[in-house]
């Protein structure tokens, strides 16, 4: 089996937002919609204050609350763990949005452009009317992953079939790969480092791991 997951190394992320921009550029998301975002999280009290940059987005949970509540079956889960939305089935009820504990889903009911009512050239090219009035979210660049089946490449290793946010990361803080393969890049990272998953207590079993230290030998 295959279980694709994302790994973010919090020690390395510098909060440059390159992944955010790369995602917007690749997926043509309108203003206010961030399938990939990086939080700037301040913690502690003066003078012991830290800043942590935390990449967030759809966690492609193993037990996705959004899928269970979806009344139309528009939200589904593939055998490789990716959670998908069928824009032709979604009625835009927003139930999945309130069911997601990661604030990863968006709905907009009219086209939005960066500069007023007229799209710039790239926005016009990427505009997808199917996304209006329905739920949208990070797909883990599903079309790139699916391309791997045709050309024998490995998602997470070969850039052509790896999510664009991972490719764009200037610090190599983001990693993508198959958790079910014990020799994959993400399995090795998780074996060698301490990690956590966000809101793990909610039981959704998110497919997004955060590294915070090396494991003690």
């Amino acid at each position: 089996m295959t279980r694709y997951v994302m790994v973010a190394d919090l020690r390395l992320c510098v909060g440059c937002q390159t992944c955010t921009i790369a995602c917007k550029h690749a997926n043509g998301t309108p203003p206010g919609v961030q399938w990939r975002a990086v939080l700037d999280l301040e913690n502690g009290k003066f003078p012991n204050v830290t800043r942590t940059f935390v990449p967030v987005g759809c966690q492609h949970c193993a037990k996705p609350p959004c899928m269970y509540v979806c009344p139309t079956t528009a939200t589904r889960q593939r055998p490789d763990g990716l959670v998908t939305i069928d824009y032709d089935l979604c009625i835009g009820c927003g139930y999945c949005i309130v069911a997601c504990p990661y604030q990863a889903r968006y709905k907009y009911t009219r086209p939005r452009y960066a500069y007023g009512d007229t799209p710039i050239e790239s926005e016009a090219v990427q505009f997808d009317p199917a996304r209006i009035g329905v739920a949208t979210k990070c797909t883990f660049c599903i079309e790139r992953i699916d391309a791997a089946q045709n050309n024998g490449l490995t998602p997470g290793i070969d850039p052509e079939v790896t999510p664009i946010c991972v490719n764009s990361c200037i610090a190599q803080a983001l990693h993508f790969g198959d958790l079910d393969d014990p020799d994959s890049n993400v399995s090795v990272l998780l074996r060698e480092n301490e990690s956590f998953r966000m809101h793990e207590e909610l039981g959704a079993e998110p497919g997004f791991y955060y590294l915070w230290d090396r494991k003690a030998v």
Partner: protein
Amino acid sequence: MRVRPWHQTVWDWRAAAQFICGGTGTGLMLFTALASYRDPAWLWRTGLLALAFVAVGLFFVWIKLGRKLRAVYVILNPRTSWMTREALFSVVYLVAGGLAILLASPPLALAAALFGLGYLYSQARILHASRGIPAWRVPAIVPLIVATGLTEGAALLLGASVLFGGAGLWLLVVLLALLGARWAAWSGYLKHVTAPGTAPLYTAEVLSGVHARVLSLGHVLPLLLAALAWLLPVSPAVVNFTGLLLSLSALYGGWLIKFTIIARAAYNQGFAIARTPARTPGTAGPGAKPGW
């Protein structure tokens, strides 16, 4: 992007109206069906209103859909979605209720009431399944939503009985018992949600802010009015007036609870980290959960 929890924006006053109308309508159908065994005229008097409430609630849901023309797809996931189950219950509720009124049949009305209870329970479970909203996902939301719906239905029938003639003392007794149940459900819910670590600070703030009104106007006032009307020697006109006020105050309490929970206290989960990273130089530190 914000780090602290913020209020969800996708379910607004229209969603609150749907929960309010659905609960009131299905609660009213239950007590209308019971009253109709003594006098079938109640089916016309308030049965129609009970159907209208649910229909209006569904209309509010429909107008907030992003793709209104696909609304029928809502029935596609009865296996896991309480929204689908709610939609299916609403259909049989409206059909059975409509037939009950047309045929003046109390048994059909009772069947409609049972489907209505299914609808009401589904509403409660819809909120409970919303894992992203701490104020909704607590188990205590289920008895609260059911109790408010039933209380509103009994309250509305009591108000109607003032206008159309008595439905009987039993209704007042039931309403007072339901007010007690609703108060217990609200107290339990509030205690749970405002406990540290259960919901964002904003949520607790908002819910605590309406507590005094829920108590005074939604529960204590109806009890005082009931005592005034039925224990003191007052004229029938005063009894009728206090009965109407009692009905309105009981309705207000339930509607306030639901509007607040859905449209005011629905802060999302926000973000958290279990540990801060060990950057060079430095060591890992404790986690953070802003807004909690």
